[in-house]
C-alpha cells in the first residue's frame, strides 16, 4: 500500500506540473502576459466582430449553365443544326437548359452533340414537344456548390488578410448550408468589413453595341422592341458625375475576373482617383486582338464598357490597341479606389453573399466582462471552500485541494488544446466549482454514513468511495451528454461554455476520485489504528 501511495502521489504531482505548464507555459514577461499567451479569449471578452454569411451558390450554378448555353449554341451550329434555340426559362431551376426548335431532319445530329462527352455533366431528356432538356447531374451540382463555397472562403480570407486583421477565423459554418463564419478580433467597425467582404467585385469589359439610352423603353424602341440574344442592357453612369444611363452590351465579355493579374489605386492627370490594372499574358493577347480590330482608325471602330458588379462604370472609345494594362476612371473616392483594387487583386467572389448575423463587441465591454467574471469566480470559490472547511473539517482541506487542482487541470486543458475562453465559458468554470464539489460531498456523506454504521475509518473510506463511484459515473455521464449537445448545436460563446463544462467534468472525475482518495489514504496511514477521522 505504502509504495502504491507514493507512486500515486508522484503521478498527481506530475499531472499538476504538466497542467500548470499548460496554463502559463514557460513564464516570460509577467504572469498575466504568460496566461494571456496560452488561454485564448473569445470575441466577447477581447472585442471584435463575428459574422455569419450565406453564399448564394445558385448563382454560381446559373453562370456555369450560362457558359454551357453559349458553348452549346456554338457546338450545334458547328454540327450543322441550324434554327435551334438554346436557353433557360425557369429562373428557379438554374441547373436546367432547354433546347427547342430542332428541325426534325437534324434530330440525330443534335442528339449526338447533346450526348457527347462535353456535356457529360448533364442528364439529357427528350420532352413530348420535340424539345430536349439538359439537367445538371446532382453530383455535379454538389461539386460546384462545394467549390463555390471553398473559393468564397479563400477569397474572403485573402481580402481580410490584406486588411491586416490578426488571427481571423474564416471557416465553414457547420450549422447551416452554404454558410461561412468570419471572426475578426479587435475589429469593431463592421460596416467597412461588410462592404469589403460583400462586394462581389465582378469586373469585366464588354463591347458596346448600342446606347447610351435614357430609359429602358428608349433602348427597346431603338432595337425594334427586341434585345438581340447575344446582348444585354446594363445601367450605369459611364463617367464621373454623369446621370444614370443604359447601354446595350455584348453578353460575352472581352476580359473578366480571373484575367486581371494586378490592380493598383492611383490618380489620373486631373488628380481623380483611378485604378490601374494589368492583364494576364493570355488575356492580354486576346484583348490586343480585340482592340486592334476596333481602333478609331479601323474599319469597325468601337467602344468598350467597364462593368463592375453589373453596373457600367466607364465607357470609352478604343483609341489604340491595348495589350495588358489599362486604367479605370469612374466616380470613385480614394477609399473606394483602394478597396476596389484590393478586391481585384484578390479575385472576384464566385457568387454574391448575404449577411445572417453580425455581432460586434467593443474592447471596453469585453474588459469589464473579464473583470466581473473573475470576481464572480473568486467569490463563488471562496464561499464554497470556506463552507467545506467548516462543514467537513479535516476532510474539507482535502476537498479544497481537489477543487484547486480541478481548476488547474481545467485551465491547463484549455491551454493545451487551444480552446477559447468566452464569457459563458467563465460561467462554466464557476459552475464547475459548484458541481465539482458535489462529487466530494457525495463521497464524504457516504463515509459519514458508513462510520455511523460502525465501520472503522479505513473500511468507511473504502466503502464510501466504492459506493459513491457508481453515482459519480452516472451523474458525470449525463452532464457530459448535455455539454456535448451544446457543443454540437452551439456557436461562439455557447461553444466556449460547453468546452469548459466538459473539461471541468473530466478534471473533476480525476480529482474527486483519485486525488481525494490518495489524500485520505495518506492520512489513514499516519493515524493509529482505530483513531477517528476528521470528517
Amino acid at each position, binding site marked *: 500500500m505504502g509504495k502504491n501511495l507514493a507512486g500515486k502521489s508522484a503521478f498527481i504531482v506530475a499531472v499538476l506540473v504538466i497542467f500548470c505548464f499548460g496554463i502559463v507555459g514557460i513564464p516570460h514577461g509577467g504572469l498575466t502576459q504568460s496566461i494571456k499567451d496560452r488561454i485564448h479569449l473569445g470575441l466577447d471578452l477581447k472585442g471584435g466582430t463575428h459574422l455569419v454569411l450565406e453564399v448564394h451558390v445558385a448563382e454560381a450554378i446559373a453562370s456555369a449553365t450560362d457558359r454551357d448555353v453559349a458553348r452549346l449554341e456554338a457546338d450545334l451550329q458547328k454540327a450543322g443544326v441550324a434554327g435551334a434555340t438554346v436557353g433557360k426559362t425557369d429562373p428557379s431551376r438554374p441547373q436546367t437548359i432547354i433546347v427547342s426548335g430542332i428541325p426534325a431532319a437534324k434530330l440525330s445530329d443534335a442528339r449526338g452533340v447533346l450526348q457527347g462527352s462535353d456535356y457529360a455533366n448533364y442528364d439529357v431528356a427528350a420532352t413530348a414537344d420535340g424539345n430536349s432538356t439538359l439537367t445538371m447531374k446532382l453530383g455535379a451540382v454538389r461539386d460546384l456548390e462545394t467549390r463555390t463555397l471553398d473559393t468564397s472562403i479563400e477569397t474572403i480570407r485573402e481580402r481580410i488578410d490584406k486588411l491586416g486583421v490578426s488571427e481571423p477565423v474564416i471557416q465553414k459554418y457547420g*450549422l447551416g448550408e452554404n454558410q461561412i463564419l468570419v471572426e475578426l478580433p479587435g475589429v469593431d467597425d463592421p460596416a467597412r468589413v461588410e462592404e469589403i467582404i460583400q462586394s462581389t467585385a465582378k469586373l469585366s469589359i464588354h463591347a458596346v453595341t448600342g446606347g447610351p439610352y435614357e430609359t429602358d423603353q428608349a433602348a427597346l424602341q431603338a432595337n425594334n422592341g427586341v434585345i438581340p440574344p447575344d446582348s444585354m442592357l446594363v445601367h450605369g453612369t459611364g463617367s464621373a458625375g454623369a446621370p444614370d444611363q443604359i447601354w446595350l452590351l455584348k453578353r460575352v465579355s472581352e476580359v473578366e475576373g480571373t484575367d486581371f493579374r494586378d490592380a493598383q489605386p492611383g490618380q489620373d492627370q486631373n488628380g481623380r482617383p483611378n485604378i490601374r490594372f494589368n492583364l494576364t499574358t493570355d488575356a492580354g493577347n486576346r484583348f490586343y486582338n480585340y482592340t486592334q480590330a476596333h481602333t478609331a482608325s479601323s474599319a469597325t471602330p468601337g467602344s468598350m464598357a467597364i462593368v463592375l458588379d453589373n453596373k457600367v462604370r466607364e465607357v470609352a472609345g478604343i483609341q489604340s490597341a491595348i495589350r495588358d494594362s489599362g486604367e479605370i476612371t469612374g466616380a470613385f473616392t480614394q477609399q473606394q479606389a483602394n478597396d476596389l483594387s484590393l478586391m481585384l487583386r484578390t479575385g472576384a467572389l464566385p457568387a454574391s453573399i448575404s449577411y445572417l448575423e453580425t455581432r460586434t463587441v467593443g474592447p471596453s465591454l469585453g474588459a469589464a466582462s473579464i473583470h466581473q467574471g473573475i470576481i464572480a469566480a473568486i467569490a463563488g470559490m471562496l464561499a*464554497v471552500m470556506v463552507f467545506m472547511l467548516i462543514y467537513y*473539517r479535516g476532510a474539507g482541506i482535502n476537498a479544497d485541494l481537489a477543487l484547486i487542482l480541478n481548476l488547474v487541470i481545467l485551465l491547463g486543458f484549455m491551454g493545451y488544446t487551444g480552446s477559447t475562453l468566452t464569457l459563458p465559458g467563465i460561467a462554466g468554470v*464557476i459552475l464547475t466549482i*459548484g458541481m465539482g464539489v458535489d462529487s466530494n460531498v457525495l463521497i464524504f*456523506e457516504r463515509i459519514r454514513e458508513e462510520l455511523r454504521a460502525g465501520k472503522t475509518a479505513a473500511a468507511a473510506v473504502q466503502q464510501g468511495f466504492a459506493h459513491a463511484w457508481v453515482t459519480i459515473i452516472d451523474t458525470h455521464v449525463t452532464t457530459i451528454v*448535455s455539454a456535448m449537445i*451544446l457543443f454540437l448545436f452551439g456557436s461562439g460563446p455557447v461553444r466556449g461554455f460547453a468546452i469548459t463544462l466538459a473539461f471541468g467534468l473530466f478534471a473533476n472525475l480525476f480529482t474527486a476520485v483519485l486525488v481525494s482518495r490518495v489524500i485520505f489514504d495518506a492520512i489513514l496511514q499516519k493515524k493509529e489504528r482505530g483513531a477517528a477521522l476528521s470528517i
Partner: protein
Amino acid sequence: MELFRTTNIDWLGKKWYFLGFSLIFSVLGVLSILFWHHIPLGVDFKGGTQVRVAFDQAPNEDHIRQAMDRAGVHDARIQRVSDPSGHAANKVIIALPESTATDQSHDAGRQSVESALSANYHDSGFTVEQVEIVGPTAGKQLQKQAWLATLYSLIGMLIYLWFRFELIYGVAAVVAVFHDTLITVGAFSLTNQEITLTVIAAILTLIGYSMNDTIVVFDRIRENLALSRRESLHDVVNRSINQTLSRTVISSGLTFLTVLSLYLFGGEVLHGFSFALVVGILIGTYSSIAVAAPMLVAYQDWRVSKGKTVTLPAGKRAKV
C-alpha cells in the same frame, strides 16, 4: 458539523402538496406564456438590431427617444441597463424591430441609431459597446437549433437511464427535468426577461444538473432495492430520499452559492444566464425529491391496480 443526521420524513406522504405546488408554478408559467408575455425572445431568435451604448454621464431616456424620433427612427425600444444589485449603469440598450435586419442589408439599423444619437443627443458623449444584428434566416435557424438541442439532450439522457436503470426511471427523470424547464421558461415569461442563446445554454446545463440530482436519489433506490427485497417500494423510496437528503441539500446549496455569486458579480451581460440557473437549481433540486421519486411509486401502484405482476423496478444490479 452535521446538519442532517438521521432524517425520517415521509416524503411520499406529501406528494399531493408537491403536486399542488408544481401545478401552481407550471400553470402560472404556461398561462403567462400563452396569454401574457408569451416567451420573450431575445434578438438571437427574434431577429433585429440591438445596440448597446455606453454614455459618459447618466443618460436621459426621454432625450434618447426624442433624438431617435427626430432622426425618423420611431419604433426603437430603449432600455436602461442595470446591474443585478439594481444600480442603474450609464448604459442603454436600443433595440430595433426585425424589419431593420434583412438578409440583404444588415448595417442600416446600427447606422441609423449611431447617426441619430450623434446628431440629436447632446447631453453627453457616447460609445457603442456592442452591436448584435440577426437577420430573419439566422433567427429561424437559431430557434430551430435551440429546440433540437433541448430535445436531443432529453432523448440522450432518457436512453442513458434506460440503459443504466430501466425505462421507467428514465421516463420519471425526464418528466422531472421537463417540469424544471417548463417552470424556468415560465419564470422568464412571468418576469418578462428575454430568452437568448446563453439562456438556452443555461437551461441545457440545468437539465444536466437536475438529472444529476435525480440520479443520486435513483442510485440509492436501486441500491436499497437490491439489499432489502421485502420492504415496500414506498418505504424504500422514502428511506433513499432521507439517506441522500444531506448530500442533496449541501451540494445544491454550494452550487447555488456559486451561481448566486455569478448572478451578483458576473455583470449584466450574464444576467439572463445566471437568472436561469438560480431558478433552475432551486427547482431542479426540488423536482428530484418531489416529482421523479413519487413517479416511480405511482407507476408501481398503477401496475398493481391493473392486476399486473408486482415488479419492483430494481433494475439491473449496480455494476460498473
